[in-house]
């Protein structure tokens, strides 16, 4: 109850922003922008959830996180290309199956790349933030070049499944169908993460490790193995985020991960470093404000997320839902 009393203002922030936006635009516009903001928020959550867990548990600042988003996006492009007949079929089941295969393939590829990255590079810089920043920024550059070598320098088209194209009308507002899929997947992943973290022994260990790694080891658990698992899961989630973003944009460039990295870090900082619930709340908040400001004051759109982060940190210096340490 005490926790809820502390957290409710932070949890109410995104709904409050949505309600505040309602009087300054007509209802159909508000519905369309809110749906767009929620979908963007869910995709940002998918991309950022792994980063916040990796920081919270492992104390690793992974500036190469965007590379796993890019990898996921390119894998999506390849899978959707290979499954063109499913993607192009006017059949929801086949369309969703194609998307599911892309999600699974991207998660596997990004997770495998994450394993190699953790074993090869990250484990050498545990506890050293400066080295982590230098080596992961370098890793990001190398990964981007490797992706260019594999997929070429030209932007790659990504097929959006036929039945997920276009919009449907809700109270006079056009809502893109694909955005519903993004919201559903985001909610599903959030629920799965909450269940894993709160109802399983692995989740218990992760939550304990986020608070006090040394004590987890003193209780007899080899936390380094947990580190590897969390890093792989975190990079796999980034890959899934990359798929959803690539299909949404219908075009992939090698810079997609780097472009998203700033937003992803803003989400993680707003939410509170290491906090999955905070990451979710932060992602929805960033998604909504980006869309509202983009409509109301397009010239301010570029800086609105930075301004949002500054305001949130002035109010709550450790983020919306910080972890107790």
């Amino acid at each position, binding site marked *: 109850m005490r926790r809820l009393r502390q957290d409710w203002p932070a949890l109410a922030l995104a709904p409050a922003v949505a309600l505040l936006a309602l009087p300054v635009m007509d209802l159909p516009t508000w519905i369309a922008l809110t749906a767009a903001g929620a979908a963007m928020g869910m995709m940002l959550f998918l991309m950022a959830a792994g980063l916040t867990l990796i920081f919270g548990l492992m104390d690793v600042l992974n500036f190469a996180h965007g590379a796993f988003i890019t990898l996921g996006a390119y894998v999506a492009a390849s899978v959707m290309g290979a499954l063109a007949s499913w993607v192009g079929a006017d059949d929801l089941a086949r369309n969703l199956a194609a998307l599911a295969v892309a999600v699974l393939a991207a998660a596997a590829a990004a997770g495998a790349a994450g394993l190699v990255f953790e074993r090869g590079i990250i484990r050498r810089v545990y506890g050293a933030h400066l080295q982590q920043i230098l080596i992961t920024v370098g890793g990001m550059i190398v990964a981007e070049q490797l992706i260019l070598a594999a997929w070429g320098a030209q932007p790659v088209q990504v097929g959006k499944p036929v039945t997920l194209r276009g919009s449907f009308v809700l109270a006079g507002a056009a809502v893109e169908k694909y955005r519903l899929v993004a919201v559903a997947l985001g909610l599903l992943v959030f629920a799965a993460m909450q269940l894993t973290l709160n109802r399983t022994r692995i989740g218990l260990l992760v939550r304990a490790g986020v608070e006090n790694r040394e004590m987890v080891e*003193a209780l*007899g658990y080899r936390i380094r193995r947990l580190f590897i698992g969390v890093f792989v899961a975190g990079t796999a989630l980034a890959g899934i985020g990359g798929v959803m973003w690539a299909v949404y944009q219908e075009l992939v460039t090698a810079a997609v991960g780097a472009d998203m990295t700033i937003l992803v870090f803003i989400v993680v900082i707003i939410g509170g470093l290491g906090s999955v619930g905070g990451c979710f709340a932060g992602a929805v908040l960033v998604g909504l404000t980006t869309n509202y400001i983009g409509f109301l004051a397009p010239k301010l759109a570029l800086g609105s997320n930075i301004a949002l982060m500054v305001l949130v940190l002035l109010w709550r210096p450790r983020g919306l839902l910080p972890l107790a340490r």
Partner: protein
Amino acid sequence: MSDDVLLRLAGVHTHIGRYHILHGVDLAVREGRLTMLLGRNGAGKTTTLRTVMGMWRASAGLIDFAGAPISGRATPDIARLGIAYVPESMGIFGQLTVRENLLLAAGPAGLHPGRLDGVFAIFPVLREKLHQAAGTLSGGQKQMVAISRAIVEERRLIIVDEPTKGLAPAVIGQLIAAFQALKRQRTTILMVEQNFHMAQALGDDVAVMDDGRVVHTGTMADLADDDALQTRLLGLSLASHQ
């Protein structure tokens, strides 16, 4: 005396960065007894405990547990030998409930109802706090959780670092009663303590450290009876802390 030694340190040196903290620690902890590690601030007591747990690596010397060497082993491997560690900071997971804190300490089989009842017999207040976030407890209750984690599973050795630090006298009295209950169960305990009333009430054996070395070993009773020795070793006498 050597036959029933559970933990033995011989000539243990520890460096932390460029600082040389332990300068050849020799220590024997006997099975079924409570060994009190005393000494002034900065004498190396906490470093000794952390070195035993593998949190700092011994740069020289031997650490044997139950006759087998453990120096150089990783902390989780040392803990799995049946050694529980209660750090000075208590190491409570504040976001987790009391039950989850205990569950983590209980190992893969989960919480055994009998052991849990044993914990509640020593710390009855924890029964009603079981589903409360540990971070919301008072300092004394947090220490009870920390000690409960050490005893919720059968251990061969419990290492406790300054359990009374920052606690109110009434809580210290409860902790003394709790450790006396553990002593009746013949639990082997190695404890660092600055509260001399607690040290005298609980200690069977005593080792006094100074400048990274053990400078005196013996029984607590002998030290308690010798004011001159106390003053020489600790700079004060136990009698003045009654």
